[in-house]
């Protein structure tokens, strides 16, 4: 299998990469970990004239973890982020979500930012970023802007990234005190994309839920915020009755379509079940919340 011919560029600095992207415009694609792009090139689902490999940019490696939160740069590999114990402690939901992405061999190359930029509707990380209230930092030659995750994902494989822009960083704010979260999913086999995934975070105030963010992957073109389920838990104790109400509210407004992998009705059902289970995990993690 061979991609259609392309020219390969390996910029040495971020500045150079941004100038290349500005100059080449729509004819160029960014190559990060290549774990989604290379299969697409192989099948010739895309055939850009130029590939701009950002793998050589030391400025884009790694992440910054401090009081303010976590800033994951463009070339931080999924597996590095997954294995970092400090990130796991501060952002258990991110750790749990990454562990569901493909296999270790793919996560060794795939980047967190690449998954976000690719915006597969069944991918774990876009939903997780919405649940964590992340902000995407987009840079272009001579400019930069920040887009909240909730506005970033626009449609299947479509984001706010414009021609000439590079997603240089995903910023995740420090969780509020008393907050905890988890990521659960159902997939055909381990490592497959989610049939349905649920990223849930809850902020506790005493034994009650002060705030909740519940986001589903795999049920809509973009991450689906289960607003009705969130409303069902806010201000309440997470007892079994509340969990059941959240389960039945979760799919309100959700209209997943039938596809090769599963029927829409199945996805709605599973989304509700996963919402309940994730709240169950959260109440066992956060002692005060267990009624």
């Amino acid at each position: 299998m061979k991609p259609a011919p392309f020219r390969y560029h390996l910029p040495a600095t971020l500045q150079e990469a941004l100038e290349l992207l500005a100059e080449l415009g729509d004819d160029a694609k960014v190559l990060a970990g290549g774990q989604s792009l290379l299969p697409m090139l192989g099948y010739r689902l895309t055939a850009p004239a130029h590939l701009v490999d950002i793998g050589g940019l030391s400025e884009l490696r790694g992440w910054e973890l401090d009081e303010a939160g976590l800033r994951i740069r463009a070339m931080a590999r999924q597996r590095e982020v997954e294995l970092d114990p400090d990130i796991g402690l501060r952002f258990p939901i991110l750790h749990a979500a990454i562990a569901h992405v493909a296999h270790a061999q793919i996560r060794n190359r795939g980047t967190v930012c690449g998954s976000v930029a690719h915006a597969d509707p069944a991918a774990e990380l876009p939903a997780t970023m919405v649940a964590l209230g992340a902000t995407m930092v987009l840079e272009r030659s001579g400019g930069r802007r920040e887009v909240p995750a909730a506005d970033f994902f626009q449609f299947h494989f479509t984001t706010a990234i414009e021609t000439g822009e590079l997603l240089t960083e995903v910023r995740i704010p420090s969780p509020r005190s008393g907050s905890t979260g988890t990521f659960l999913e159902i997939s055909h086999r381990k490592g497959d994309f989610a049939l349905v995934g649920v990223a849930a975070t809850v902020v506790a105030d005493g034994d009650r839920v002060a705030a909740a963010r519940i986001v589903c992957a795999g049920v809509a073109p973009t991450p689906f915020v289960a607003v009705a389920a969130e409303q069902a838990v806010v201000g309440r104790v997470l007892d079994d009755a509340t969990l059941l109400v959240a389960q039945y509210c979760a799919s309100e407004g959700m209209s997943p379509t039938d596809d090769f992998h599963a029927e829409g009705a199945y996805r709605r059902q599973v989304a509700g079940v996963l919402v309940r289970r994730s709240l169950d995990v959260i109440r066992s993690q956060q002692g005060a919340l267990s009624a």
Partner: protein
Amino acid sequence: MPEDPATSSGGCEVIELSFVVNGEPVTLSSDVRVSLAEILRRDLRLTGTHLGCEHGSCGACTVIVDGLAVRSCLMLAAQAQGADVETVEGLARGDELDDLQAAFREHHALQCGFCTSGFLMSLTARLREGPVVSEFQAREALSGNICRCTGYVGLVDAVLSLAADSGKEPLK
């Protein structure tokens, strides 16, 4: 040398590559579109690395690059510039199988052998991170590769036998 149609670039960009394979420095020029797997098989004749699906699903092409198990079908050779690459050919010392290979033979961890090199490389990288002592860990370590023949039982036994050899009792 007459142009070999298998290696000619067909008018595509040609780049110079150099990296280390199984301890030996290698320098060659290639059409930039080519995957690391194809360079290994076609140019270096290291055909122990197999290509099954060529889209990341099966794991047959797994090699170790800079210490990490990766899909060589999902890496442009250009992305391996300067890297240290290990393939299945690097495991045995001459005619002597390494411990993992010997355990595969002992425990019938292969039938047709198509998947074997990929499993060996995934597991080699995994075992360097620490021992695999439970069936759960073994299945986790095997989960990124597909075998159509064995049903995985022999593979699990082979991995766990290494823990037993090291004096740790496998937890079943």
